[in-house]
């Protein structure tokens, strides 16, 4: 009988934010590969599509999940969600893709003025993936928390103003925002020091 141990939890990373899917992936349960693909395949593929056409985006997405699976022991769910971990791999694979195109072009001595896809910089890739991760993370917040966070982020309202405008008790507003930020940190990963 195999015991799937929950992940070790650091003080600043409560299991509140670690999904069982992330725990199972970290534990190396091969049954989760399909689950992980179904959950994050669209996000990974969509990030790829921001830089390349459909066929190479599919190839890069394939490479991302193969690399993720083969390196799953490196994933630590207490340091962030699977989504930011996978998007980090995605960025590297997109860069590898463009490098391989460059090598191929040199090898076959292509004409220099042939149309080439615009190669994104690492910074551009990181900015795009962070914004797309944040979209996902906000969408996954509970409805009330999503509303409160949106008022704080997009309308730049203070806790007191949100409470007055919504009728939600001030303490609840503060609690919702605090919990939401913890979830967003997990969803973005990069904010974990």
């Amino acid at each position, binding site marked *: *009988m*195999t*015991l*799937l*141990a*929950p992940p070790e*939890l650091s003080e600043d990373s*409560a*299991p*509140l934010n*670690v*999904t*069982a*899917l992330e*725990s*199972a992936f970290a534990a190396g349960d*091969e*049954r*989760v*590969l*399909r*689950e992980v*693909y*179904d*959950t994050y*395949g*669209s*996000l990974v*593929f*969509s990030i790829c599509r*921001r830089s390349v056409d*459909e066929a190479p985006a*599919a190839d890069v*997405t*394939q490479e991302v*999940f193969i690399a993720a*699976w*083969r390196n799953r022991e490196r994933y630590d769910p207490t340091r962030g969600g699977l989504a930011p971990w996978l998007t980090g791999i995605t960025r590297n694979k997109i860069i590898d893709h463009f490098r391989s195109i460059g090598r191929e072009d040199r090898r076959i001595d292509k004409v220099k003025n042939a149309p080439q896809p615009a190669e994104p910089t690492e910074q551009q890739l990181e*900015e795009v993936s*962070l*914004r*797309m991760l*944040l*979209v996902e993370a906000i*969408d*996954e917040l*509970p409805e*009330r928390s999503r509303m409160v966070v949106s008022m*704080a*982020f*997009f309308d*730049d309202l203070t806790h007191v103003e949100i409470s007055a405008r919504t009728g939600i008790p001030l303490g609840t507003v503060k*609690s919702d925002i605090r*919990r939401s*930020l*913890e979830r*967003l*940190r997990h969803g*973005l990963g990069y*904010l974990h020091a």
Partner: protein
Amino acid sequence: MPDEELLELAALSRSISEADRVRHTPPPGLFDRIAAEVGASPIADRPTRAFEAHDTPEAVIDLTEAREARSPAASRHRNRQLLLASLAAACALIIGFAAFGGGDAQTFVAVATNNELPEAFDGAATATLTESDEWTLEIDFSDELPDGEPVELWLIKPDLSDMVSLGLIEPGDTQWEWPEGIEPTEYSLVDMSIEPEDGPPTHSGRSILRGELRSI
């Protein structure tokens, strides 16, 4: 949470464009290519349900109407039609879990949270049910339970037709013997509620943590 992080996230959120919200569906057959490459077992082709954090089961329950159904002893349970009507007015919870079709899984995991339960409690817990000689439920709490108020552990059917008490949680308790005759697949909701010491032996409706056991 430092203010800088809040400001950073707020600035990042305001920079989101429509293009950032667009999601493309990967072409059909892509997963098969991945599975073939990594040599995943045929289980990958079994019907599975995509995991989404917000795609929760109807484990969203207001237990306030179930108070009379609380049973005081660990191995006792009562068959009652409890809360079907209250499902519509369900109050809340988000549980993360992985769900799989088929298999002979004998390990169950629940991530119990307090996301939108009415009682304020910042902690969370991971419940793992395993079978060796007997079924054992082990709960790993992220924080200490509320001080000064008894907390009781419950197993509840998702359709709310029955619940079983595993008793009050004493300080340091982490393991419970799974009650004989109780199917983990049926009594899959793990619930922890604050119970007044002189209150009735029914569920108080004051749940602080709840999660659903799923086989893995």
